[in-house]
């Protein structure tokens, strides 16, 4: 394209390409257009033994079991799982199974303003599931907000996380029982 092509019809879009065309005598500092997926976007980064001491929770989840820690000294059940009991500071904890079925204690839906990486899923339903021993927050899949009521039975499913790392990663979600 020659400079003669900068007609009134086309010049209107020129500024949208680059602010600096290198045509001046000034030195140019180049910035990258994007960076590698920052950790901020990856809510699932802490699952392996290299990154967290509760990796057994994720190993169990990959095997289809929802578990958490219980203190063998004071019997306190924790959620989220711990490495030190917050009640008695014992490190003698064991993983125990949690129920996979529970009831919706509360729920809402996100119709706008989702965090990065979740925008494409909007609107989505999320809630607090009462499993009996614990109440945990969770995404509620295969559900419409208007169809749900407090107390509805829900069951856990394990989902796989796709990218940006090579190793297998999982998380739990819930959905209405059939």
């Amino acid at each position, binding site marked *: 394209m020659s400079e003669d092509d900068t007609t009134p019809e086309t010049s209107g879009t020129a500024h949208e390409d680059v602010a600096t065309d290198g045509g001046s005598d000034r030195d140019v500092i180049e910035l990258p257009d994007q960076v590698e997926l920052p950790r*901020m*976007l990856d*809510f*699932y980064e*802490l699952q392996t033994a290299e990154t967290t001491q509760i990796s057994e929770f994720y190993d169990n989840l990959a095997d289809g079991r929802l578990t958490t820690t219980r203190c063998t000294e004071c019997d306190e059940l924790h*959620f*989220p799982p711990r490495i030190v009991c*917050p009640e008695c500071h014992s490190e003698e904890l064991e993983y125990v199974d949690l129920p996979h079925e529970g009831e919706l*204690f*509360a*729920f*809402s*839906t*996100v*119709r*706008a*303003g*989702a*965090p*990065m*990486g*979740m*925008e494409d*899923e909007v609107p*989505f339903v*999320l*809630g*607090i599931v009462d499993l009996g021993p*614990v*109440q*945990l*927050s*969770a*995404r509620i899949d295969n559900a419409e*907000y208007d169809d749900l009521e*407090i107390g509805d039975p829900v069951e856990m499913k394990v989902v796989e996380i796709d990218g940006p790392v090579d190793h297998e990663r999982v*998380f739990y979600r819930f959905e209405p029982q059939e």
Partner: protein
Amino acid sequence: MTRNVGIVGGGHTKWGVREASYKDLIQEAGKAAFEDVPNVTPDDIEGLFVGSVQPERFAFQTHVAPMVAELIGIDVDSMIARTELACASGQAALRYAWLAIAAGQIDTALVLGVEKMNLPRKYDAEAQTSMANVMDREFDGVNGFNAPPYFAMIAQRHMHEYDTTREQLALVAAKNKTHAANNAFAQFQKEVSVDDVVDSFPLSPPLCLFDCSGVTDGAAGLILMSEEKAREVTDEAAYITGSGQTCLSSNSINNLPSMSAWPQATQAAEQAYEQAGIDDPLKELDVAEVHDCFSISEIVEYEDLGWVEKGEGGQFMEDGRSQLDGDIAVNPRGGLLGCGHPLGATGVSQALEVFNQFRGTVEPERQVPDPETGLIHNLSGSASVHSVMTLARERL
């Protein structure tokens, strides 16, 4: 406490979507605070406390307290710190400045709250990601739990357990946004009706868009002095009579004490009331700036700050008892719903509002008649932390 501490001056920036940087906001608020009390200069400041929550994410800046010292020209003699306690960061800064002066460590402090939250449009989701990180990121934020769905569930549980109505929530938003319509600093300066609230976008039901505070740029500053020093420079001060702050070993969803009550607020209020010698807060408090991050929050606070029986908060609103001419004027500033919520600045702005109400310097449409006592309240994150401070025009 050994010494009385007074707020002797304060300043405020315009709040909203500002064409201004984080550093611009600091300078505007600092200048305004010192202009408010000409007998005090930056040279008098011995301690600096900066409430700011996520400058690392919103402004890509850390170590912000020294930046504030530089921008406002303060040589800090004794104490300098930034407080980060999510939405309660501003009151935390104020509380620690009060403690430092009350303990005799310093005589004069600047408290400055600042947040720059609005990023260029294409980064909207980045701000929401930062807010999701206020919750337990690994187990709650991961599910998309940022503030609107979380407080929507508080509303749902409160409606379920106490028959609080959708209209009662809307009355809170309409009241506060209408106050903000007469506040020159507020982000949202438009009167809003109950129908406007209910008909606004159903963002996270049962909460609609107008039940939610905004994403706000803003700053506010306060100058605190020991009573002895304060009386040398001014005859107008708001004395801090009590201050409480609580967290019940809980932050993530499973460990919260309740989804419809905040016993932490009750404990923090009881601490403050006891220090202030307040037996009947509803009778003895004239004005309150409480943390209405969402409309439901204010209703829960009427109850858990001890003003009305549990479950009666919605009726308290419906009966007009929190209006300017009610039992206690709640959020005459316009609240977080009307003023917006630049996280670290909110508590600072609330205390300044109480001081201005005492001085009679707010817009006449929202002036409480001759108030002598006030309260500010903040919560943070999953409402796991609550802070309550009581103030008086004269030491009680």
